[in-house]
């Protein structure tokens, strides 16, 4: 039988990065293909190529869809042919009704006047197909995430979908909602609709997938067939992480000292949905001179943990205690957390880390203005001296400390953010994805800086989605999933397989 979709030799290059390299992917009629891989393996990029977000011509290779070459210039090109993608972040308008959302941009109308009767009738029909039991006039904002997902799927169905792509559809769903969604996929399959399911949850994949294609570092590793019998999860994990570690990390002999920070029973709730715990009863320890990693998938609650520790800058209903040097400290506001000796280097340095319109010096001193002023009057000479000192020490490449940070490269921006926090003289540094979006050469420098921070007797808590980075730098690694710490590994015990296994085995513990 002719496949629905065939992607051959797809390569996509961004400046300096080869995101996809000769990727092949086939979807047979009425099958569910699972697409798995680590964060950054290229799954989303591949789906963007398929749906036309990256238009034809911006990538190499060819797409054959229903026997014809697919050359999509934009999303509406691919949607017209029945390829519909549902992203992890739902694209619904919260203050429009279910029916209005289903037909958004595609309203049954005559001369621009919407045919309300048809909207309502057709909406009911589609909602029945996805099993959504609500009035079509209900505002989307009043629905839970699970039902919102169903609205998205109904929207896809309204477009005569032939190939449905779901990007981590169950990431934010409860177990029952996830189960219902998977059953829905199986029903679609019976009706002849093919799906591509992107997911980290291997148990779900095992339930519904016909075949599994594994991506790693932008290439297709292999495609496993599940129809002849269940595929071993370990087999999938090995395929996902099978890269060998290269010598990309500076050597360091850890000098680990006394207990520095101790967090007990830390629980945090979602800032809007107060009943949803995002971090659940987490306890951790950190010693002087120690680099401790927190591994986990996106949405595991790592950033939420870090930000809530840093002056409750995330969440509500925060419970738990923090001790530094044996004494309980008050971290209820950001300035108190800073005073207690905690610094948080954000994962989003452009939005949260820097004032981009201001220069290196002003960004460096921002979190510790009293450090360069007497009686609130800033000593500009001292400021230049401090910023210049960090510029030299961190090897920030710029023409001087008066260069605007917006003009710096990612690596140098990160060094400015690090300088800012070092100037607050922290005991504990929480680094959230410290090398995100930084090229390889600069990464090495950041790693060296992190090592030095630890050697100075500080404690470093490091969050990273790049597992090799954690394995290369950390003395100890906590594994976080669904808000909990589910495992802890020493440097010797830690491996990508072990971490992945810990994550996968803990799936669905919270019901």
């Amino acid at each position, binding site marked *: 039988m002719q496949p629905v979709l065939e992607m051959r030799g797809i390569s996509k290059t961004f400046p300096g990065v080869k995101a996809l390299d000769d990727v092949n992917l086939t979807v047979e009629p009425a099958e569910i293909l699972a697409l798995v891989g680590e964060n950054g393996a290229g799954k989303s990029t591949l789906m963007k190529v398929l749906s036309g977000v990256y238009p034809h011509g911006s990538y190499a290779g060819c797409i054959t869809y229903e026997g014809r070459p697919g050359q999509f210039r934009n999303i509406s090109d691919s949607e017209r042919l029945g390829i519909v993608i549902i992203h992890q972040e739902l694209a619904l308008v919260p203050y429009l009704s279910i029916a209005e959302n289903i037909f958004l941009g595609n309203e049954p109308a005559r001369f621009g006047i919407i045919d309300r009767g048809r909207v309502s009738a057709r909406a009911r029909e589609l909602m029945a197909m996805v099993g959504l039991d609500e009035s079509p006039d209900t505002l989307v904002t009043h629905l839970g995430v699970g039902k919102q997902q169903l609205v998205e799927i109904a929207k896809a169905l309204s477009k005569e979908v032939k190939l449905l792509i779901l990007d981590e559809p169950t990431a934010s769903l409860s177990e029952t909602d996830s189960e219902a969604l998977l059953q829905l996929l199986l029903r679609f399959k019976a009706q002849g609709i093919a799906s591509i399911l992107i997911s980290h949850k291997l148990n779900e994949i095992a339930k519904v997938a016909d075949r599994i294609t594994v991506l790693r570092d932008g290439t297709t590793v292999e495609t496993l067939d599940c129809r002849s019998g269940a595929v071993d999860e370990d087999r999938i994990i090995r395929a996902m992480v099978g890269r060998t570690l290269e010598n990309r990390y500076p050597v360091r002999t850890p000098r680990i000292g006394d207990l520095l920070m101790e967090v007990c029973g830390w629980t945090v709730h979602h800032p809007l949905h107060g009943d949803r715990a995002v971090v659940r009863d987490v306890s951790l320890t950190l010693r002087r001179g120690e680099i401790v990693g927190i591994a986990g998938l996106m949405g595991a609650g790592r950033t939420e943990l870090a930000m809530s520790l840093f002056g409750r800058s995330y969440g509500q209903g925060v419970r738990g205690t923090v001790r530094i040097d044996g004494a309980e400290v008050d971290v209820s506001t*950001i300035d108190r957390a800073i005073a207690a000796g905690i610094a948080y280097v*954000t994962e989003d340095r452009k939005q949260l880390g820097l004032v981009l*319109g201001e220069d290196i010096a002003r960004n460096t001193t*921002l979190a510790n203005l009293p450090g360069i002023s007497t009686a609130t009057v800033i000593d500009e000479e001292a400021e230049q*001296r401090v910023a210049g000192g960090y510029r030299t020490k961190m090897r920030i490449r710029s023409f001087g400390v008066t260069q605007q940070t917006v003009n710096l490269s990612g690596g140098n921006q990160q060094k400015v953010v690090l300088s800012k926090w070092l100037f607050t003289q922290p005991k504990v540094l929480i680094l959230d994805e410290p090398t995100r979006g930084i090229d390889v050469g600069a990464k090495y*420098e950041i790693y060296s800086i992190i090592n030095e921070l630890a050697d100075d007797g500080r404690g470093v808590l490091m969050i990273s989605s790049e597992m090799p980075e954690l394995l290369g730098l950390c003395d100890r690694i906590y594994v976080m999933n669904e808000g909990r710490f589910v495992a802890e590994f020493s440097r010797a015990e830690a491996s990508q397989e072990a971490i992945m296994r810990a994550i996968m085995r803990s799936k669905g513990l919270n019901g």
Partner: protein
Amino acid sequence: MTDITMSKSMLPGGDVGGDVGGDTAASEPRGRPGRLPMAQLRTYGLLFALAVITVFFEVATGGVLFQPLNLTNLILQNSYVVVMALGMLLVIVAGHIDLSIGSVVGFVGALAALLMVRFGFDPLSASLLCLAVGAVIGGLQGYFVAYLAIPSFIVTLSGMMVFRGLTQVLLQGTSIGPFPEVFQLLAKGFLSNFAGPATSLLIALVFVASLVGLNWRRRQAQVRTGEAAQSLASFIGRNGVTAVLILAFAWQMSAYRGLPNVLLVLLALVMLYGFVTTRTTIGRRIYALGGNIKAARLSGIKTERLTFLTFANMGALAGLAGMIFVARLNTANSKAGVGLELDVIAACFIGGASAAGGIGKVSGVVIGAFIIGIMNNGMSILGIGVDWQQVIKGVVLLAAVCLDVHNKNNRL
């Protein structure tokens, strides 16, 4: 610092040059020492615009603009705009707007009249009370903006209506005046010529000397830290031009009645706010707040309290402006200050403040206020009707902001 050595073989892809190469491209050539930084160019551009407008009206009015009497009037007419523009600058830099200040001027003016004329308060305590009331009004609006997260446009739009209404309530449809002599001195008084007719010139000389001295010290400091300092020639040129302009101004003023009290108040305020915005932690934090509120908050800055304070400050300055306004007219009426907020906001934007927040300088805003003021004054002398005055001011504002946006796009 450990020595960081990298060999290509160690790094997959051998892309070591990436970061370094990226920097060369990233560092702006025009930002290098020896060239004019963009920010300075903008201040010069503004000064140039002010000069062009001034010369134009000086010629068009046949020399009336710079006559001592008119020059004095120009200062008096614009004093309240400058006073409030200083507060508005902080509000705009923090990323907000205050539409209520015209009404607050009217309200505080009416309150001052009631207190002094009806209830016989002495001018000093009445003035202090009025300042406090202004600050409370600003603080109240700031509370809604900062702590309840209501958009400042809406809060101050209501404030605009509320306080215009309350002004009418206070005045009950009448005008109240005249004010005590002492109070009128705030707007109408002149510094006594204690050293003879050349007093103004003497004061200006002292002022110029200290200004140049301060600039010299700053330059020395820059030289010491090895920062990009201006060349000696440029230093002498700039300070020389400034000194000549100030002395010429004082010379003209001395030909009428000398330096008005208001001018001294203005000078003090401009210097104070210039200092606060550039040299103090609170000023620095307001810029950071407007530049990136999330980054500022995560740096331990209490963004809510800071926003609240900028509004309270704006209110106090609006109160002061209200008192200058009624002292000059010597009567309080319910129309006082109508539309004044527009001139003040226009002065800020012409002066290079960014509507998005984070950008703006006291010097720019003062120049902006004088551009507006000279246009108002010059067009009145030329007999241009209020109708066309509005049109022209509107066009100038739009042109100034277009130019600003253009500059910014080129810079990034």
